[in-house]
């Protein structure tokens, strides 16, 4: 960044224009977040989504188990049918 500034001065910009927009790009942005008052909507949505996800996961697991058992039975019946 310093090399860039030196180059700018070399190009003869005698009167350095003041920065129009005095903003900096910084990775750390500190918001005045208020952690004292809970964001109840966010909390409710997070818990609701977690409960829904767990319910879906457990349901999917049970369905997969039943489907596996069903296909195992079908395969056995099919093999017994030809012998």
């Amino acid at each position, binding site marked *: 960044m310093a090399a860039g500034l030196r180059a700018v001065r070399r190009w003869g910009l005698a009167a350095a224009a003041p920065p129009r927009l005095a903003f900096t790009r910084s990775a750390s942005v500190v918001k005045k977040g208020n952690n004292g008052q809970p964001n109840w909507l966010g909390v409710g949505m997070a818990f609701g989504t977690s409960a829904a996800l*767990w319910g879906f996961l457990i349901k999917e697991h049970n369905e997969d188990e039943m489907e*596996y058992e069903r296909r195992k039975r079908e395969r056995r019946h099919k093999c017994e049918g030809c012998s």
Partner: protein
Amino acid sequence: MVLLPDESRSLPPPPLLNKGTVWFGFSGWLAALLDNAFNQRPVLRAGVHRQILFATLGCFVGYQLVKRAEYVHAKVDRELLEYIRHHPVDFHAGKGTLGW
């Protein structure tokens, strides 16, 4: 490309507590703790709803990925065993030309 083709349901489903679920769930929880740390909140005690949500998402993603991995491994095993079945000469034990 479908994540889980229909024939993957012929495989026994992995238990709900498996290495994918545990690892991804733990990393989700860790991400929530890191979020607390970067926002200068108490690491373990703040945002429990966020920790639970991230851990749940991790468990969910881990479970789907383990199912996919087991399907891919089973498919490769099936193709390997089919090949062995179709080329018995190459795999005939005991009567090899080199005698071993």
